[in-house]
């Protein structure tokens, strides 16, 4: 069905279908990701939004095969330019990771090796997938650093990660992800640890990069407003499932799922200063014992007996939502 909605002549670069990742813990099976499907076109940026425990990070990890035991991908498929990644062995994954699909993490201090210079690390990243001379590696590394807005890149190659600020380190991590002309970058809360002014710089640079190089981005974040400035499409996750998806502006202007609506209403930016914020009652459920049926049911004001049955994804044009009692299509603008 997804194939039909694609623009003609261009196959999606990444196609995820019914992806399910479960963690087999002593306390029980945690269904961290439970049937996630979406597709991503060349140069497209999609925002994967959710609160902690919604499964957005595990989704990102599953896409590039970084799920460690007790977690396991138990079903579904991830196709990168037609190649199936689920079930690929370590050697196969290593060929793909870093070369065609890469990940940028929240904390760049954890991604970068503190005892190697930036240049050495970038050389290693290049050498992992192709034969390069030291000189050629330096030239390409400097180019990549310049692309992400690091001034005086050639001389910065000899610096160590601790000599960079948080924002610069995150830029280095992005530059490494871009080294091989990566098709897809999965970015997991990449600006959450940064200051607002630095975040703004990186956001606008990322959008430029996606436009110029055709790199597609999966931007994982808890922050709706960051995603809204960046992503053309938004996927809202709750308890391991996508509960709502669609073009960013449409979803944010007129959400169909009560959870998305509640999330938006609870933002201070949406309320008159000083007045009480609308709040979603309760807390996110434990993934160990999810309520029967729709997982949002206990917190939902629109819930009825019907919600004891899990709602399927209802699609209408570019929008989709999982709710028996979806909100009206358009509230007056």
């Amino acid at each position, binding site marked *: 069905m997804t194939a039909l909605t694609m623009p003609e002549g261009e196959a999606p670069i990444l196609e995820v279908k019914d992806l399910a990742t479960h963690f087999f813990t002593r306390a029980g099976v945690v269904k961290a990701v439970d049937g996630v499907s979406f597709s991503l076109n060349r140069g497209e940026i999609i925002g994967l939004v959710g*609160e*902690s425990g919604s499964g957005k990070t595990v989704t990102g990890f599953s896409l590039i095969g970084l799920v460690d035991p007790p977690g396991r991908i138990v079903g579904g498929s991830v196709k990168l330019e037609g190649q199936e990644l689920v079930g690929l062995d370590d050697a196969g994954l290593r060929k793909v990771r870093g070369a065609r699909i890469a990940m940028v993490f929240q904390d760049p201090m954890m991604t970068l090796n503190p005892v190697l210079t930036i240049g050495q690390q970038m050389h290693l990243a290049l050498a992992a997938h192709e034969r390069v001379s030291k000189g050629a590696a330096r030239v390409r590394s400097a180019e990549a650093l310049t692309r992400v807005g690091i001034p005086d890149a050639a001389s910065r190659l000899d610096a160590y990660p601790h000599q960079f*600020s948080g*924002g*610069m380190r995150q830029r280095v991590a992005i530059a490494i992800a871009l080294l091989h002309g990566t098709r897809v970058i999965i970015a997991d809360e990449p600006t959450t640890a940064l*200051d*607002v*002014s*630095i*975040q*703004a*710089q990186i*956001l*606008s640079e990322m*959008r430029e990069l996606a436009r110029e190089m055709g790199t597609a981005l999966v931007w994982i974040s*808890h*922050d*709706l*407003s*960051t995603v*809204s*400035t*960046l992503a053309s499409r938004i996927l809202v996750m709750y308890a391991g499932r996508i509960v709502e998806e669609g073009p960013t*502006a449409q979803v*944010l*202007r007129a959400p169909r799922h009560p959870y998305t609506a*509640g*999330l*938006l209403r*609870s*933002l*201070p*930016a*949406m*309320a008159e*200063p*000083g*007045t*009480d*914020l*609308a*709040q*979603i009652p309760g*807390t*996110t459920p434990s993934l160990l014992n999810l309520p029967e049926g729709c997982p949002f049911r206990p917190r939902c004001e629109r819930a009825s007996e019907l919600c004891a049955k899990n709602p399927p994804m209802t699609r209408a044009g570019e929008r989709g939502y999982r709710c028996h009692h979806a909100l009206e299509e358009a509230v007056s603008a």
Partner: protein
Amino acid sequence: MSEAFISIDDVYKRFSPRLSMADRIVSKLGARVETRPVRAVDGVTLNVERGQTLGLVGESGCGKSTLGRMIAGIIEPTSGSVRIDGKPVMEGGRKADTRIQTIFQDPFASLDPRMRIGDIIAEGPFAHRLVDKSGERSYVAGYLERAGLDPSFADRFPHQFSGGQRQRIAIARALAMQPDVLVCDEPVASLDVSIQAQIVNLFLKLRREMSITLIFISHDLSVVRHVSDHVAIMYLGRIVESGPTETIYTDPRHPYTKGLLESVPKLLVEDDALVHFKPIMGEIPSPLAPPAGCHFNPRCPIAIDLCRSEDPALRPLGPGHCAACHLAQ
């Protein structure tokens, strides 16, 4: 003019680096050892009226937490004074007043994992004789309820609670000391959006019902706008602009405030709004070596020569509104 409820008068805080062994020996022998202190807070003067909420905003390293800690009586200013209700908050290196309490960012770090919730809340009031052993349980129950928690939680341990609930426990603990002033250092930064709304509402309720004076420190401009009456924007240890919340947000005069407000991603944007998205250039300089003149001049789009040589003072621009910029009109 009578003194404001909280009066912060020309406060400085410098942190000097620890000397290495070699440097210490050399300096004992009479040689001069170059040390550059970090000027975390660099001459701040502020007043807060009783029952008002002051939002302290700035990026990391701007000194907002250090200033908050001086108001809370946790650290002592290098020079200058912080007075609450006419009395200094610190005397002889110790906090002199229990009517100021603090709520920290990380409720996982600020609650002792080995203590029961009831003991966590009662410890302070008991030590300061606000309650005796016989009244302890009902006292604790009252404050748990006030923070929106079930009184039966008193027998549980912190690990049994989620982040939002822990932050409520931290709030209950602070309230149990019957404070007049609450210093909140990024109290909602580590919480999920839906939980953040619950805690923000709790602060609004406390302010309404208990007429508490709040110092609300945050990097999140939209939360600060929501809870504060007044806002002070800090940059590299100094206040660059302060004034009534709506004035600051609708009519910012300092280029840094303007840039900061423009850097906040908007929830609803027109299709190509990012084209007009003008982030502040460059990075925050090291507080070890702040630039001469106006600290913001290397990043400022409108800086002139004067800004590189002369430090702008905070100038009044309107009712309660000041900015430290040579060019602000």
